[in-house]
């Protein structure tokens, strides 16, 4: 019973860790894009596409991290 609870606690911790890293990553990508658009608004379209690629790669980590309970 106790070991089951401990594993459940670890899984909750894992969920949090899997979300917090990519959360910080996406925040950084977005903040730098906002800075860049403020400096050069005419580049907004191109910067948004680059930002999208950055977000896609970062959120892949979150999805993989959150899906790990299926293999443990």
């Amino acid at each position: 019973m106790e070991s089951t609870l401990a594993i459940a606690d670890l899984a909750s911790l894992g969920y949090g860790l899997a979300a917090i890293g990519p959360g910080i990553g996406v925040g950084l990508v977005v903040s730098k894009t906002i800075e860049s658009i403020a400096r050069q608004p005419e580049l907004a379209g191109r910067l948004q596409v680059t930002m999208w690629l950055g977000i896609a790669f970062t959120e892949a980590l979150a999805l993989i991290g959150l899906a790990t309970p299926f293999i443990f």
Partner: protein
Amino acid sequence: MTRATNNNELFKQVLKQGTLLGLAIATLGATLGFLVAGDQGTVSALIGAAIAISFNGLTALSVWIGSKLPIGGFYGIVLGGWIFKIVLFMIAIGLLRNAEFIHGPTLFFSLVAAILGGLSIDAIAVLRARIPIVETK
């Protein structure tokens, strides 16, 4: 593969190719899953591929729709969409984790394959695109 010359073409291309890739991985995953774990494997592979491709597609769609809005609306849609997706994903994982019709490893590997495939499509499409640096309106 054609080269996108503006943002609309790029996002259309990514969404179309992402859907095709999702169908391919779902088919392959369902076959392999059936060989590994029977019906459970088939269902798990289909769910894994569907989750990954829909999430990848939602990201591209949110940036595409957001790019037509003012800058505040853009970030609202992109970041709000991100939080929405993560919460939805956590609920889906919570519901599916102990479901009897799920074979965990098949779902996981199908999900990871679809995510990595989707990222490859995104990266190749952006690298091949020839979008003018300054777009005049």
